[in-house]
């Protein structure tokens, strides 16, 4: 058994598996729907292969901690407990969506579960997270802020400014870099001057650690340690989760530029399958239990799609709402 995992309680391990499976099933449904013309508007940016990062990190958090997400958000949101029905409705642009159809998949925020300020502008999350963590520190809270960003985002100046400031002010923030080996069609070697983004932490006096992003227990174990340090005034942390974008950048991307051998290598490390196998081998879940979980998740997804399908679109002039706190505040 994985040494680190020994301390993780059985119910947490099973919960983490269930969540990973939920994310996978949710996104497999999006893959299916995006293949049908007119079914899903806009782009579909999926986190296939990265489920363990979202689940492992978020499982290590407390209820009032803040999560800041990016364009590849479905995993973060579902792991945090967002309702699949309202996420699906948002992705379809329906009035019952988490953001009333204003956002769509790329910038879904769900304040009820403290996923605030999701941005599809690459590298925008870290500076806003500095502000959230500042507010937590300012009010002497014990809560922390976690921000997810990609290996590509690590090349934005904003990320560096945020890390320096967070370290300077000892803010309670965890920078989670999901290194999925790609930024669009540019591989890590084409866009990043070093191999380990965790090493960048040293430049700001932030301990940088890397974890196996395809092993949910590894992610959880380190995230919990870093979160505890951070919660107790130890200042920011940086986690680089080494993982892989198993599908294209978005569903319109057929990965013509990806070496098939590389794909095969990572498919063999599929975090959901890998973890299922481990739980089975360690006798934590029986074959029949897997079947039950699988069926339950499929039911959740079917219900989510049905809910979204049956929901109305917003009325056109609802586009005018939500710009201002008080509607009279606007111009013209």
């Amino acid at each position, binding site marked *: 058994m994985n040494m680190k995992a020994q301390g993780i309680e059985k119910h947490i391990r099973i919960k983490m598996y269930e969540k990973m499976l939920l994310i996978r099933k949710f996104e497999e449904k999006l893959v299916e729907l995006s293949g049908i013309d007119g079914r899903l508007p*806009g782009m579909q940016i999926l986190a296939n292969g990265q489920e363990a990062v979202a689940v492992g990190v978020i499982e290590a958090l407390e209820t009032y901690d803040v999560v800041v997400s990016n364009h590849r958000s479905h995993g973060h949101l579902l792991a945090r407990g967002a309702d699949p029905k309202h996420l699906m409705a948002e992705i379809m642009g329906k009035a019952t969506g988490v953001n009333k159809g204003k956002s769509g998949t790329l910038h879904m925020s769900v304040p009820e579960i403290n996923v605030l300020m999701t941005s599809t*502008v*690459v590298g925008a999350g870290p500076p806003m997270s500095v502000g959230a963590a500042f507010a937590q520190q300012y009010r002497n809270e014990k809560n922390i802020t976690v921000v997810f960003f990609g290996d590509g985002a690590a090349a*934005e100046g904003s990320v560096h400014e945020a890390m320096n400031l967070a370290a300077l002010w000892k803010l309670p923030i965890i920078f989670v870099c999901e290194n999925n080996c790609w930024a669009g069609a540019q591989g890590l070697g084409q866009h990043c001057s070093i191999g380990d983004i965790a090493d960048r932490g040293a430049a700001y006096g932030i301990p940088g650690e890397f974890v196996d992003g395809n092993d949910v227990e590894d992610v959880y174990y380190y995230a919990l340690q870093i979160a505890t340090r951070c919660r107790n005034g130890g200042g920011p942390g940086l986690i680089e989760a080494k993982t892989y974008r198993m599908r294209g950048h978005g569903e319109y991307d057929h990965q013509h530029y990806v070496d098939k051998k590389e794909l095969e290598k990572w498919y063999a490390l599929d975090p959901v399958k890998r973890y299922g196998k481990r739980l089975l081998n360690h006798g934590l879940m029986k074959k029949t239990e897997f079947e039950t979980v699988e069926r339950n998740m499929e039911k959740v997804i079917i219900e989510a799609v049905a809910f979204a399908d049956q929901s109305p679109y917003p009325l056109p002039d609802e*586009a005018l709402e939500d710009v201002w706190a008080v509607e009279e505040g606007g111009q013209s």
Partner: protein
Amino acid sequence: MKTISFGQALNDGLDLAMSMDDSVFIAGEGVGVSIHVDPNMPTHGLLAKYSPVRVKDTPVSEAAIAGLAVGASCMGLRPVVEIMFFPFFTLASDMIVNHAAKLRYLSGGSSSFPLTVRVRAGVSFSAGCQHSHNLEAWATHSPGLKVVFPSTPADAKGLLLSAIFDPDPVVFIEEMGLYWMQGEVPEGDYRIRLGEAQVVRPGKDCTVVSYGSAVFTALEAAKILSEEDVSLEVLDLRSLVPLDKESLLDSVKKTGRLVILHDATKFAGFGAEIAAIVADDAFDLLKAPIKRVAAPDIPVPFSPPLEKFYKPNPEMVVKAVRSIL
């Protein structure tokens, strides 16, 4: 002449500029290896033809991309850099607005910044407001920047070549929805002088002035109104800075009525400047108030019916014209 798409016309322009002048290079996120395999993408095939020495895929670093253009142009190269979506212009804007636009002035005219920033723009893919936001008025409000906004394949090529060989920084705005649009394009080194508007449909009752794909919205409106014997003149500005005031005023002189149309939001939009110019310089020529048709003052919504609501359509133009006839 050959019939090619808007995207291919841009590609033709880039290719030609690179083949004519070694100092031209291109840079941006995925301008070499792209997730798209589509000959209608402006940089398609250039990496294979010109090698990574002149086709630079960059990290996701808009400030560095724009800074690369500023520094390299000051050294005498002719950079053509790409901003993937218009809202990310804001990340590049320090380099473009505070530097590209001002350093010639700050140097007392002794330095030159012959760079082109190609910005991919548009509203209509349900991409949401952080991918769709036409910010041309930000650029036009920055003295020192030229701002070009083509609507047809031929104009795309002709204006791009002029932009690349212009001695000053040019923000070149490409609407992605036009990339697949076909049109006749002159072969070879075809250039259109920056600052020349074009009457794309002559008329006598009212002028509709526009730019980019909104020109087609205006043309649709003209078609509808022609059935009621109302004749619209449609003026495509093509370049916002420098602005062809003369053609604008000539047209207003002819029709006495003006509707301004753009897909960007209305308040403090570029249309306000046109209205002000005409009110200042040609008030006497006007037979009716100037009308603006533009997007409502909201971020671009995602949901298809909301996005449709956002985008100005021909009926709105028709209504505006009728209100001043």
